[in-house]
């Protein structure tokens, strides 16, 4: 079952065309990566899905056309976007950030259980549960952002450059936690990542974008084997 489908999606910021016909699908429970250099349109693709940039083309989620919906409406359908730069609610505490994540949910019990799960997934957050988010380190903020997105119990998680600005070891542990999250919850994911090694650790397949278009698509195994990918993204 296809959960998310993009078909010929275009987007522009004013006169600048950033997406020029991007297509991809994410199956239910599947995990797809978006690779590419800076400026290729990876982040814009995620923004197109979550409704923060105006687009052309077709975007459907769980069979419904979601183009033109507001970001909060898209979120209500089960899409959780962890933006580039984390988007943590800086003046709120860690606990409050997580509670905001669960805003649309009703069951107090289930929310409490998921909160405990998040703290188990990211033990560093447990230590900082009462601190303001602004006081957290980059890695901790990234974990908080992912945890907050998870608290919404989404069907699809949009992850934008989760390794940005993090030390390699921190990025690795963040990705390890995300991998565990995926295995234990079966959440579908669309992962934008410049570091292809990290991306391949959590995605089944990927598409490579260049100047707003798909240039290469395939399973992780296939792509990892290709010379171009190895040279451009995996360090030869």
């Amino acid at each position, binding site marked *: 079952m296809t959960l998310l489908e993009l078909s010929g999606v275009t987007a522009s910021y*004013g006169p600048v065309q950033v997406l020029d016909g991007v297509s991809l699908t994410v199956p239910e429970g599947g995990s797809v990566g978006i690779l590419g250099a800076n400026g290729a349109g990876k982040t814009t693709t995620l923004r197109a899905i979550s409704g923060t940039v105006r687009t052309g083309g077709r975007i459907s989620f769980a069979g419904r056309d979601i183009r033109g919906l507001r970001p909060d409406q898209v979120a209500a359908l089960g899409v959780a976007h962890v933006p580039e730069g984390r988007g943590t609610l800086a003046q709120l505490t860690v606990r409050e950030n997580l509670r905001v994540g669960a805003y649309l949910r009703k069951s107090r019990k289930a929310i409490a259980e998921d909160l405990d799960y998040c703290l188990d997934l990211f033990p560093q957050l447990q230590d900082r549960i009462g601190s303001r988010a602004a006081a957290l380190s980059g890695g901790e903020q990234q974990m908080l952002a992912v945890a907050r997105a998870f608290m919404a119990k989404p069907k699809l998680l949009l992850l934008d450059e989760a390794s940005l600005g993090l030390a390699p070891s921190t990025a690795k542990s963040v990705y390890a936690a995300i991998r565990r999250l995926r295995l234990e919850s079966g959440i579908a994911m669309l992962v934008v990542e410049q570091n292809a090694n990290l991306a391949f650790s959590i995605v089944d397949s990927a598409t490579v974008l260049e100047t707003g278009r798909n240039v290469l698509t395939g399973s992780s195994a296939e792509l990892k084997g290709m010379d171009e990918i190895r040279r451009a993204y995996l360090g030869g």
Partner: protein
Amino acid sequence: MGTLSSVGRRRPAHFRNRWLRPALIVVVAVVLIAAPLGLPAFANQTLVRVGVYAVAVLGLNIVMGYTGQVNLGQIFFVGLGAYVTAYGVTQGWNILLVFLAACAIAGLVGLLVALAAARLGGLAIAMVTIALPIVGVPLAKRLSDVTGGSQGISASFSNAPDWSGLFTDQWQYYIVLLVTAAAFLLARQLMRGKYGRAFSVVRANEAVAMSMGISPYRTKVLAFTIASIFGGASGFLYLAAVQYTSPETLSFGHSISLVAAMVIGGGGSILGSLIGGAYYVFVPQWTNTIDPNFTTVSQGVILLAVLFLLPEGLVSLPRVVRRLTRRATARPALKNPPQSTPAQPPTMEAAPEGLETTERHDRS
């Protein structure tokens, strides 16, 4: 580009002819100089008042339209200039000295206010300047030795001297014309030079200004001081025209009217300041004749209408009309030609949530 600023727009096509511009300037100059000789006294007096407030609005524009600092106290400096002028005249000072004193004292006070207020950043200048007229009125009433208290001061220095062969209204006109023209030319030169550029950068993004080596604090202080000097000059002209000043001159309501006049005329535009001055003189007068109670409401409605429909002020009207007609003729197939004023995205709800949805930069 902000809505209060039309800085940097292209000159329309018909101004590109090399000879047209200087010829136009000469014609305008001749008309301005010859006009009072033919016009009735009342018309001259009205034009004089337009000049007075145009200078005040121009000063306001420098600190608010160009530098983006909301100044709710400009009328205070006008009043201050008027009071200094009245005092100087009653003391028998040389008129040139009086003019300089009006400008200098207003500028000095402006400098002091700015030095404190500009430190806060953000809307602090707006929040502080609101106090100026509100403190100014009781202060003017209290210092009655100097200001004549609630009664105000009468001072007349602009009666036409015999050797000129002119009537008083004509003589006043020339005084005002001289100062107003000088003020506008000075402002134009400033805004086109490095100061104008510094003002624009600080307005757009203070962090970027800092990275360019421009100190936002100093720039704001400078802009505010210049605005106060222009305010003082306007006060001098006010006294020349009205020959009387009182605490009422610098009341809070007038301050708001000046801001409204600036926005309606055209923020960030030299010509817009002139239109603003004219608006200030004509429109409230006109609405008062319809119904005094109606004036305030209409002022509010007009200001809001301009902000929504024509944010760069009346001065941008020709440009907007041209753009609308060009779009209508270029694409007749379009059922609803898009508005040329700030693009309204189809779903307004998207505005606060979206990160990039409403790009207010794409104005054309």
